[in-house]
């Protein structure tokens, strides 16, 4: 007990009673409520009944009785009436005293403080999680970026090597093309592949003192495979590498080529070719075609508008069937005249609106007077590019011109 005068002790008791809304309950050894008093209504407990089991009316007592110790405290219990109480329990012989003191104000203040603290904590935890996720994502992105950069570097090295090899191959393809000749008749050409390596190739050479071979072939597709086949076929013709073949007879040459270059043995590639043998003394031209566009003969001086004739011949592309048969045609060329041998990329030109150049339109272009002999082939290329609407054409542009 405090060592205070009775008057002050009473004052303190009154203070607690007035500020804490003191209420009390007495429970006997049978756990039956036997007495109650104080401000029970303040806690919503005004209807408790004496001589009835306490725990049925006061849920907070469930499982607590009998008290193992003399004093026990349940802090901040929200009561049925909405008030919050500290519940003090005291064991007194067989009975239990329950004293309720109001702490609603303190509870409210504590709740406000705790709410702010928890809100802040939850926010900071959420922020930490987001930051961790962002950092993880950033780390992954950085790693992915590094891998991409390494891959790009490796790809660039490979690309540069392939580009060098393609340039070497392109130089080789160009190197084996024959140089233009000026006598006893003129032969010149223009060769513009649509990629580094196209599928077109051509050649011409004297078979003997009187006969001059001229040929142009177009392997399906573009790129390394097509270029290799076109170079191989051209080298075969140039070197006379077709045993038992009379190179003066175009039909024999194409038949032998067809046997040697069946597509199942050459990566499913086939090619078209026009092969002609020109007899300079008589002007006689013997020629055959394996599915190739027919050359166009323009008669008349180059400075005037000429007459055009197509030199057609029948025969399937080389490589498609071992049973293919070829037949030669003959035509006598009369000077002045120009013979144009070309691949389909020279006249099969798509316009920006999706339409194609007609064959008659191309023949008309060839028949026009050439301002300067040397620029005629360049003018044809310019026509193709202007018609297509771009400098890069869709197909190889290869054309040979024999002028007599």
């Amino acid at each position, binding site marked *: 007990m405090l060592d205070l005068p009775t008057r002050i002790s009473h004052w303190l008791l009154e203070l607690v009673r007035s500020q804490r809304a003191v209420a009390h309950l007495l429970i006997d050894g049978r756990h039956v409520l036997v007495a109650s008093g104080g401000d029970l209504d303040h806690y919503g407990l005004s209807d408790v009944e004496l001589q009835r089991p306490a725990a*049925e009316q006061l*849920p907070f007592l469930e499982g607590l009785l009998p008290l193992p110790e003399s004093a026990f405290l349940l*802090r*901040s*219990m*929200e009561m049925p009436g909405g008030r919050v109480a500290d519940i003090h329990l005291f064991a007194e012989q067989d009975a239990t005293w329950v004293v309720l003191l109001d702490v609603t104000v303190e509870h409210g203040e*504590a709740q406000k403080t705790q709410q702010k603290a*928890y809100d802040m*904590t939850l926010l900071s935890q959420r922020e930490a*999680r987001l930051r961790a996720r962002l950092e993880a994502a950033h780390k992954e992105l950085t790693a992915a970026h590094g891998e991409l950069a390494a891959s790009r570097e490796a790809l660039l090295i490979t690309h540069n090597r392939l580009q060098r090899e393609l340039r070497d191959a392109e130089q080789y393809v160009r190197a084996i093309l024959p140089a233009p000749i000026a006598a006893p008749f003129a032969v010149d050409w223009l060769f513009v592949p649509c990629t580094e390596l196209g599928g077109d190739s051509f050649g011409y050479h004297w078979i003997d003192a009187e006969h001059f071979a001229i040929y142009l072939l177009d392997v399906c597709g573009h790129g390394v495979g097509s270029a290799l086949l076109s170079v191989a076929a051209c080298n075969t013709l140039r070197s006379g590498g077709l045993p038992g073949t009379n190179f003066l007879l175009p039909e024999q040459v194409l038949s032998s080529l067809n046997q040697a270059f069946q597509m199942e043995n050459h990566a499913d590639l086939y090619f078209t070719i026009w092969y002609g043998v020109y007899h300079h003394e008589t002007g006689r031209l013997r020629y055959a075609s394996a599915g190739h566009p027919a050359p166009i003969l323009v008669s008349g001086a180059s400075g005037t508008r000429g007459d055009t004739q197509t030199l057609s011949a029948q025969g399937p592309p080389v490589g498609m069937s071992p049973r293919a048969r070829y037949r030669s045609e003959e035509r006598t060329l009369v000077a002045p005249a120009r013979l144009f041998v070309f691949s389909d990329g020279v006249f099969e030109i798509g316009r920006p609106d999706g339409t194609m150049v007609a064959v008659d339109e191309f023949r008309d272009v060839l028949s026009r007077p050439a301002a300067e002999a040397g620029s005629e082939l360049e003018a044809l290329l310019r026509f193709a590019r202007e018609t297509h609407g771009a400098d890069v054409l869709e197909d190889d542009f290869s054309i040979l011109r024999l002028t007599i």
Partner: protein
Amino acid sequence: MLQKKICMLGAFGVGKTSLVRRYVQSLFSDAYLTTVGVKIDKKTVTVGNETVTLLLWDIAGEDDVSPIRMSYLRGAAGYLLVADGTRAETLDIASSIQSRVKAEIGTVPFLVLLNKADLQESWEIGRDAMHGLEQAGWSVVRTSARTGAGVEEVFEELAKRMVS
């Protein structure tokens, strides 16, 4: 009438009050209101042939400076350990609380609730962790106070275990 005291235990903010509110009143609110002290709700259920009044003690959550008052647990017939599936650390806190509860009141039925199952995109507790708890003999259930998923079932299951 039979009465059973059930304590809701877990870290702060895991949804203990929302689970009780969903179970007793079929209500849910997104607003987070912290619990100070303890509040008791009642719900009467039938278990087999027995009518039981569940006294649900919604006890303030544990934080770094305020551990759960073990005095509230006296007389509990069972408890629900609640963790927030979007905050992995709350499962560690639940595990710590379980050890202390066992030391205080001995072995009584309990279930582990991984709450906020509706927030799948933020979920942090993996199958391995759940499997580990189940291996230890714990019953682990995903719940959502928001949608009500699993809520009724866990209270009914705990009631069965307490009465049997």
